[in-house]
Every structure is written in structure tokens, then in C-alpha cells.
């Protein structure tokens, strides 16, 4: 149990633009969760975006765009892909992955 003095005061009177406030209301209604929880999720994401894992993801994305070796590029594509039920390793359907696969094959046979 927290005493009255121990309880953290929660900021609830956010000064949001009307359209944003409406979106927050709608999200809370659709998701069936408290508005404060939604803002909390946003803040958690913000914290994650400042962390080392985010930098690792950025580096993977840079390798997808810039790695000279298509095999490195394919590894980076895998690192960047989301976790989705039914998705297969190496099963990217993107143009980026197709070009990297084709170039890797060309290099192997050269």
C-alpha cells in the first residue's frame, strides 16, 4: 500500500491539439485501455528508441542499404524483419531481398 505522500502524481491534463486528443480518445475506446496506458506505451517506445538496441537496428538497416556483400545484406534483412506467425526464415518477399539473393547467386557462380 502506498501512502498518500508516496503516491506519484499522474499528469492527466495534457494540452493536446484537438485532433490528437480525439485520436487518443478513439484509441482508448477501440483498444479498451486507459489513455494514460497509451501515452505510457508511447513513452516506453521513446525510451527504446534512445537505447543501444535501436542503434543495432539502425546499423542493420544501413547494411541492408549499403553492404557491398549481398550475403551481409541478406543477414541484415533477417535482423530487421519482424516476428510474425507463419513467416519463414529467409522468406522475405521484398524487392530488396530478391535483388540481394540474385546478386549473391551471381557472385557465387562468377
Amino acid at each position, binding site marked *: 500500500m502506498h501512502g498518500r505522500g508516496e503516491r506519484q502524481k499522474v499528469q492527466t491534463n495534457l494540452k*493536446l491539439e484537438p485532433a*490528437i486528443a480525439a485520436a487518443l480518445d478513439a484509441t482508448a475506446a477501440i483498444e479498451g485501455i486507459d489513455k494514460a496506458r497509451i501515452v505510457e506505451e*508511447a513513452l516506453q517506445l521513446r525510451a527504446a*528508441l534512445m537505447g543501444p538496441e535501436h542503434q543495432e537496428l539502425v546499423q542493420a538497416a544501413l547494411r541492408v542499404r*549499403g553492404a557491398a556483400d549481398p550475403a551481409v545484406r541478406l543477414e541484415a534483412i533477417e535482423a530487421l524483419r*519482424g*516476428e510474425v506467425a507463419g513467416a519463414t526464415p529467409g522468406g522475405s518477399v*521484398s*524487392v530488396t531481398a530478391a535483388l540481394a539473393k540474385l546478386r549473391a547467386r551471381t*557472385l557465387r557462380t562468377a
Partner: protein
Amino acid sequence: MTDLAITARCWADLAALPGEVAERVVTAFEERRGLNPEHGEAMKGIAGPVRTLHADLSGGRSVRAATWYDRSRDVCWLLAAGWHDDVYARIQQLARMGELWPTATDSANFEADAPIRAMERVVRAARAALESAMASPGTEVPVTTSPPPEVYFRVDGDTLSVRVPIFDERGPVLSRRAVAAIQAAVFGDQALLVEFPPESGYWHSVLMVGPLPSLDSWPPPSQVSQPAQP
């Protein structure tokens, strides 16, 4: 801006073609269907519609492919590819057998590719959007808006702000991987300020602020690897 995707079955077609030919098919798909997913002649006798894509090369090498635009998800699929002389008959046969279309596994892989697609779309649209943003300083210019993710540019002096909404009325709309992919696509490895400015009212967006790129060299082209010379 339409997304692009290639079915696993079509990948088998591409793998059976010489590398140069297969690459030509994929780049033609990207260039033409990226501009207009409903371009191309509709094949007779196949619902969809399934449209033909010409990807000829020098030396009279005539190559054809088939695409289908899934309007409900705003994605254009590359379904099949091959030499002109027999590819259409094979496409008709695949359609009759129900094997031409994206499978459930293709759909799952498509979902997993969301960060890659975000990067592809931003790169495709970035230059024109940056030109517009530079012509209207202080004004937010859409880079891509539909399907998600949305990305906006704004130029102020020598800085470029990139706003990426991460929540909308349905809840979270963007993963951390996709945000990282967009950051890398726009700013490369440059240091930048990543903000989440509640005072702006953008509680639902992340704001990345970095140096204004030069249109002379941006966005940097994707590396093209060539086979090692003997």
C-alpha cells in the same frame, strides 16, 4: 505509394533464369509497378486482373512477367516470370491449378517485411519529397502516407525533421525495427536528435532531426555488387 512483393513461387521462376535476366525482371517490376501498380495489359481468362510486364534485354532476349495488384492491401505482387515463348501458357496453367497467387506463407512473410518495405518506400519517394520540403521551408510535406507507415519531412534552415507517426486510432502502427529502417534510409549513419516532443502535441509520433542532405548525393544509391573480375 504502393508496396511491392514477390511470391516464393515466383522466386523459383527467377532462380531458373540467368542472373542478369532475373535482375532485369525485378528492376522492371520495381520501376514500373512502383509508379503504377495497375499498368500493363490484363491477361485474358485470368481474374484478378493479372497484368503482363515486359522486361526485354539486348540481343533479342524477350522476357515477360505477370503481376497482380491487391487493392485491399495496396500491394502489387510479382507472380511469375520467364522467357516470352512459353511463359504465358505456364501462367495460365498455374492459374487453373490455383498456384499463381500469394500463399498464406507469402502473406506472413510480407507482414514480417514491414520494416524493409518502409525503407524501400521512403527511399523511392524521398527525393521528390525533399525537393518539395526545401521549396516550402517550415511546412510539413508528406513522403508517404498510405499504406502505413506515414512519413513527413520538414525543412528549417539547414536541418531536416522527419516525423513518423507510431500510433493512430487503431493503436501502435509501427515497430521499432521500422523506425530504425526509416532513420537509416533518410539519415544514414549521421548523428541526429531523436525526439518525442509532447509539447508539440505529437505524442503519437517520433521526430528525428538531422542535417539537411544535399540533393546532389541523396538518397545514396543502394550498393550494386558486381562479380569479381578475373
